[in-house]
């Protein structure tokens, strides 16, 4: 779906934007260039989190980036530079491109001295969610080019995707007289910190903004002992919708738009508690604990004491034992627009020492991020490793296979395991095999080549965990859906659902082998028995904390 404007239509919209700007003194100006017109605006903004001009100027002359220089110069204080706010002047120009039949946004950003920010410096200003989406497209998304009218260097948001974006905008628009330039600029401007006031939209439609972030609670079912189960629906302004029940903290639905804006539920699940969640053996959408993944022989030692856990997976313990966190009814409250689940796990529950108090918070942002934040404290030294176990299928939960899914996991390392899925303690980069996922890999084609024949069920060692570090990227070209995962955890289990066998999932869907995939943020499997693995121990004076983000977007082009 593409959409093009004629020059006359576009210029009419420029004039309309100008008149709205004049109404509330937003500072846009209209300029003539021969027979053409373009819009311009200057804004001064204070920006934090960017290196000062002097730091960059010095680095630039030496041909190094500032980070490199800071590594070699002890006198350089990175944190001081990062915290210093800079007053920058932004010049924005909106022109019409005859070649592409769409509007194009140009900008330049200046230091107080009048010097131009470079592309690298400008990239540092781009809000994180756009950077992560466009990292692979960096050289074609935002580039320095010659201004068509002024003949001077300007940065340009490349117009080749605008036609498609305008198509989406026009299709979603309920008004017949929309100003597509305003809609488009509202969508792309934030990339370079140009934020149109909501006043523009209000003047156009005379309506209140109809899409608001919401969270609603409904009764979902009852436990055998009569306690009620509730379902919470989180919905953001982009119509992304997540439904979560307080039984097991399970994500039951996740409606994500495709590149045409069509919503589809992309997580595997059951129709109701009694239709499957009560007997579930596959951890569909569940919170997992106390210890996600396996502990060898269900045994570990801590401070000289050996603990024995229930054996529920071959000779080992998996996912917290017979009745892990996935089978518990959590306490649930709404705080602001977040869902907060709480659970107190008694001392020696499933064999684990210490009374553990757990809080898990689900939030859905307007940047289409599902953010899961975990906290836990204990009364005695114990081990803890929490995660979430949604099975995704970007083609839709009932798709039945993983065709068309392409995954990339930037780390090259995984932890090989024995025939019972217990790590050997080694690290392997799987070079030249299907276990090296640093290059984009079509999942369904690779499955048959994974050793042992079960597909992927591997812990990947994340090199620099942190909420800004991308752990995985999965894209599904037929729908255009993209899933990026970020986490503070040192490991991520990538599991392609070999053991799935659910005859009646949601809406009667059958979930068989390789019909969904999981990306589970975690400590490494069997860490309590592997001293050289990242520690899973917490003590009474410590707090376990984890944040993991699933970020949804769509492919362009």
């Amino acid at each position: 779906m593409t959409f093009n404007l004629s020059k006359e239509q576009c210029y009419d919209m420029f004039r309309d934007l100008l008149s709205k700007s004049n109404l509330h003194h937003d500072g846009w100006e209209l300029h003539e260039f021969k027979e053409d017109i373009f819009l311009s605006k200057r804004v001064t903004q204070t920006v934090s989190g960017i290196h000062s001009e002097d730091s960059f100027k010095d680095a630039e002359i030496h041909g190094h980036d500032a980070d490199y220089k800071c590594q070699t110069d002890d006198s350089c204080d990175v944190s001081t530079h990062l915290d210093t706010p800079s007053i920058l002047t932004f010049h924005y120009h909106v022109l019409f491109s005859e070649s592409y039949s769409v509007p194009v946004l140009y900008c330049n950003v200046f230091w107080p001295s009048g010097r131009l920010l470079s592309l690298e410096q400008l990239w540092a200003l781009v809000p994180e969610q756009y950077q992560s989406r466009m990292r692979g497209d960096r050289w074609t998304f935002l580039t320095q080019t010659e201004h068509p009218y002024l003949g001077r260097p300007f940065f340009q948001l490349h117009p080749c995707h605008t036609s498609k974006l305008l198509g989406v905008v026009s299709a979603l628009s309920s008004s017949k007289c929309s100003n597509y330039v305003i809609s488009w600029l509202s969508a792309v401007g934030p990339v370079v910190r140009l934020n149109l006031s909501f006043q523009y939209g209000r003047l156009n439609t005379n309506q209140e903004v109809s899409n608001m972030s919401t969270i609603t609670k409904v009764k979902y079912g009852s436990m055998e002992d009569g306690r009620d189960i509730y379902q919470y629906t989180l919905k953001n302004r982009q119509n992304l919708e997540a439904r979560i029940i307080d039984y097991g903290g399970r994500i039951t639905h996740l409606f994500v738009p495709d590149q045409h804006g069509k919503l589809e539920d992309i997580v595997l699940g059951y129709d109701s508690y009694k239709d499957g969640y009560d007997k579930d053996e596959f951890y569909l959408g569940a919170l997992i604990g106390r210890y996600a993944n396996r502990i060898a022989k269900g045994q570990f030692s801590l401070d000289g004491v050996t603990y024995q856990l229930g054996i529920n997976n071959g000779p080992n313990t998996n996912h917290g034992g017979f009745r892990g966190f996935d089978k518990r009814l959590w306490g649930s409250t709404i705080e602001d627009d977040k869902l907060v689940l709480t659970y107190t796990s008694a001392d020696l529950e499933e064999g684990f020492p210490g009374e553990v108090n757990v809080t898990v918070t689900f939030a859905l942002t307007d940047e289409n991020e599902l953010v899961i934040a975990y906290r836990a404290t204990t009364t005695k030294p114990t081990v803890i490793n929490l995660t979430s176990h949604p099975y995704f299928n970007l083609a839709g939960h009932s798709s039945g296979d993983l065709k068309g899914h392409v995954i990339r996991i930037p780390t090259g390392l995984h932890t090989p395991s024995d025939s019972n899925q217990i790590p050997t303690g080694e690290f392997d980069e799987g070079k030249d095999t299907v276990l090296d996922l640093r290059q984009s890999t079509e999942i369904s084609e690779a499955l048959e080549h994974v050793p042992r024949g079960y597909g992927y069920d591997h812990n990947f060692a994340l090199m620099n965990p942190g909420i800004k570090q991308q752990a995985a990227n999965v894209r599904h070209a037929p729908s255009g859906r993209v899933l990026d995962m970020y986490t503070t955890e040192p490991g991520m289990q990538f599991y392609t659902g070999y053991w799935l066998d659910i005859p009646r999932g949601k809406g009667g869907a059958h979930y068989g082998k390789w019909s969904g995939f999981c990306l589970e943020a975690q400590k490494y499997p069997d860490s309590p028995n592997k001293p050289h693995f990242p520690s899973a121990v917490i003590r009474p004076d410590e707090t376990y904390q984890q944040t993991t983000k699933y970020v949804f977007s769509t492919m362009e082009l």
Partner: protein
Amino acid sequence: MMGDDRAILREIWEGRIPVCFTLSKDEVETEKPEPVFIMVARQTYFPLVTERVSKYLAGYVDKEKCGEMWLDYDGQPLKWHYPVGVLYDLYGNMGTGLPWKLTVHFQNFPEDELLRCTNRDVVESHFMSVVKEADWLKHRGNVINGMQKRDHKNMWMGLVNDKFDQFWPINKKLMETSEEEGFKHIPFRIYQVDLPVIQKLFRPVAEDGQQHCLEDLLKFALPDLDNDKWKVLLQGMEVPLSTPVHWLSEHLSYPDNFLHICVVVPNSGDVSVRW
């Protein structure tokens, strides 16, 4: 494609300009370096061929002040994002003889005139975006978007490595037309010293079905142009004004698929020469 036309493509591809690179006197630190002489392809971009020149001459400059390299000709900073042949036709063809004498700088980068070019990726990004724009003009973007990334990379590497036989099999698709219709619009840019570049929508065929020629294009884009006072250079040549623009677009475009037309003041006693 006829054999003779292919010979034209090959000859355009192999056009060269002898260039002499001299370090700016203001920037020489102690010892003055020897000038560097290179035969530079008209179709390429300066950053792709000056990497070794830059390393060599940078050795003679104060390390503390050495920044990004840039070039000027007779005081005019040269926009690296124009193909070399375009820069020469526009500025160098002024009758001061050959080689074309350029001054190399490592200080005081004129950031209000020149685009930064920190590595080859920047050139590639620029080149591919121009090719993409050209295809939007010709085919509504359908050919370039239908190609695989591998094909884009082969085009680029063909240009970088000066390999006609790597570049043209891919580029041929971008020059294709169906029997019923030619290019939708002709990708062209017209350059004049110290004036904005002219780029407009221009169809290869008139409404009556007649083929447009170069003269029609010039009258459309530069209605006030006096042919007796200006010289029109395309790939360094004064092309007959009666030449059909569609044919020109297929054969005399630069690798970025644009016709870069330079309108310059003729030299007194000028003899048309080709490089």
